């Protein structure tokens, strides 16, 4: 085992030292504060205004080096890194507290889908602007009548020769009001069984007939929108995968989304460790019930962290995560809700104002077990696909 490791160590060590030098030279000081919250994110896109010149500069140098999407091939704007090299890069960035240069649904979701299902022309056309942070994408999946029953989408695409004419409404479109393009599930065959009449379309948000309306959430923020399509013309070449086979692309992408939600900062890194919150609280140690709940949540957090680690290691060994991503999503989001309930309880009345750090987060976490497939949908996936229970 030790020998197998040392085989790969030499080139990796060299890579590590190169990356370290590069970061030292290129990462602006202001971008080394380790911040990862909503305020620190750079989403990119034509409507993006950088929060500082350092943020702009950091994005530019990373994009030039392919480090906004390190594992994508160089031809599409990536750096062509192996998983191990990517780990080293992340590791070195963490060491200096480097912010992520760019985050987007294009990187997390559309990119992987295009890499798997897109044509060479589509990859060359759409991926590099994502990598450079020039085009910001949003996801058009859910509809008022298609939530957990996502394959029930009714937004219609009518074949008009060289283009589709799209009419209908999407809901829960994250940041649609800031996005340049949308990837959407559109019904292109009304007669076929519901899973076999959907196509995966790429639509320019500036097209005539597209409009958006923000939805205010219980947390006070409006990250989601309603998106309307009124006879929007979409050129035929903007279909990913085969016509009427969009569900295959959607399923693949949903798996990515689940892994992201269970794996992302929203879940594991959320806020401060419970131990620290407890230290600061006035009642934490004197309330045995609260203390016990916090201890249980800590045990479960650590075990779940090991589970994420294990699945990442499995993926690196070439064993796909597959349907088990439903478990990561379910357990991760339910635990996150539990943690934020505890943070609120530990803080008592001090966390009840809108100026508290915790209260918007606490409310936001309630969406975690709904977005990207509800907990109940996750349990149904596990019960049918993993346990093989009937029906």
């Amino acid at each position, binding site marked *: 085992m030790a020998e197998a490791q040392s085989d790969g160590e030499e080139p990796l060590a060299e890579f590590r030292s190169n990356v370290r030098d590069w970061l030292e030279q290129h990462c602006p000081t202001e971008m080394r504060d380790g911040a990862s919250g909503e305020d620190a994110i750079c989403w990119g896109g034509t409507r993006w205004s950088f929060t500082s010149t350092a943020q702009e500069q950091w994005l530019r140098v990373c994009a030039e080096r392919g480090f906004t999407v390190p594992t994508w091939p160089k031809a599409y704007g990536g750096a062509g890194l192996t998983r191990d090299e990517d780990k080293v890069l992340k590791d070195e960035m963490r060491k200096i507290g480097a912010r992520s240069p760019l985050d987007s649904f294009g990187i997390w979701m559309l990119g992987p889908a295009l890499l798997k299902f897109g044509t060479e022309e589509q990859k060359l056309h759409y991926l590099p602007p994502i990598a450079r942070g020039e085009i910001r994408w949003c996801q058009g999946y859910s509809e008022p009548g298609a939530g957990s029953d996502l394959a029930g989408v009714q937004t219609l695409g009518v074949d008009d020769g060289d283009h589709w004419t799209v009419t209908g409404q999407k809901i829960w479109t994250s940041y649609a009001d800031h996005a340049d393009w949308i990837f959407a599930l559109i019904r292109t065959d009304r007669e076929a069984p519901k899973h076999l009449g959907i196509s995966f379309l790429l639509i320019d948000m500036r097209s005539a007939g597209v409009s958006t309306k923000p939805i205010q959430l219980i947390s006070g923020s409006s990250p989601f929108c309603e998106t309307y399509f009124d006879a929007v013309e979409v050129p035929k070449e903007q279909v990913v995968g085969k016509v009427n086979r969009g569900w295959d692309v959607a399923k693949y992408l949903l798996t990515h989304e689940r892994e992201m939600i269970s794996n992302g900062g929203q879940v594991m890194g959320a806020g401060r460790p419970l131990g620290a919150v407890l230290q600061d609280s006035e009642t934490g140690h004197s309330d045995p019930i609260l203390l016990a709940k916090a*201890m249980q949540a800590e045990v479960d957090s650590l075990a779940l962290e090991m589970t994420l680690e*294990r699945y990442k290691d499995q993926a690196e060994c070439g064993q796909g995560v597959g349907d088990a991503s439903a478990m990561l999503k379910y357990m991760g989001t339910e635990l996150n809700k539990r943690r934020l309930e505890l943070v609120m309880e530990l803080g008592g009345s001090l966390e009840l104002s809108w100026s508290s750090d915790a209260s918007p987060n606490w409310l936001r976490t309630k969406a975690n077990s709904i977005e990207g497939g509800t907990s109940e949908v996750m349990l*149904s996936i596990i019960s049918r696909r993993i346990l093989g229970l*009937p*029906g």
Partner: protein
Amino acid sequence: MKLVETEEEKILADSARTLLDRSAPIGKLRQMRDAGRTNEPELWQEMAAAGWSGILVPEEYGGSAMGHAAANVLAREMGRNLTVSSFISTAVIAAGVLRSVETDVACDRLSQLAAGTLTYALAIDEASKFDPSKVEMTAEPRGNGYILSGQKVFVADGCNANRILLLARSPDGLCLFDLEKSLPGLTQQEVQMIDSRDVAEFSFENVEVTGETLVGRPGEGLTLLSPALQAGQAALAAEATGLAEAAFGMTTGYLKERKQFGVPIGSFQALQHRAAHLWCEIEVTSSAVLNAGRMLDQDPQNAALAVSVAKARATETAQRVVQEGVQMHGGIGMTDAFDMGFYMKRARVSAEWLGDYGYHAAIVANLRGF
């Protein structure tokens, strides 16, 4: 090393399953209980021949030296079949202690242990809950030796073991003793356990022991014992995980086969979601157990957190699975003729042994700055 089972570990698990299904299927426990036996010497010999008793023993003393993750693989397989053996007491805990003291006597005993001719029990508990730091049994220095007085309860494998590792308190602090059982003043009482396994209570009344029985130096008892104890706790967590997997497998099998209202009960969403949740809990617990084995093998100085997370999680998961298992089986789950009850009873006993949920959660909280 990655948190993924290696090829070697998979092969070990397969061969363990073959051996256990042949020589120690779940029906074996029922037979032993009905016959009033708690010991299976032939099985132990078979395990010794397969290298299991010497799994932590260096090769120079006849062991197979495969390490903690491998020991956990075996414990997990034994958990699946509810196999009765002295594996954790002898092959994990006692072997761990003996290999850390490099005396000739210890090395000789290590060889016997690996050969399957010497078994051990660990005597720590004096009250209803595990906490080695609270041991009050006295070890009073007398000449070259000690006088031992006090009671030990919940000594797993105590009746059948050849020797006892005993924790007692001297004026210098906690001391660990390696004792034979035929000592004047030492009486042994067998306890009829709910899980049908070997547990003894020991009473020491002014038992004279020589200085050679002391392991290490006076006051070092807990320091010496701790690494071996952690290894035992991790193996017990692995056993409980295997137990949970087997009980869960029985339950999903029943959900597919049992019909009510003309359909398999597994088609009801109320049961599907509960079953799916149990599967998630088992997955998360398995990761914690795998991590504990890796930490014990690679970074034993810092394994305490991983071990306690694993033991706490496994304790909780196993109990949840057996309780749901009985409920989902309905009336048949309550009958003695059905095996689920054996799983439930063992889950309860293994939850208490070597520290319950609260004991290990408190260690986690302490190490995490609570």
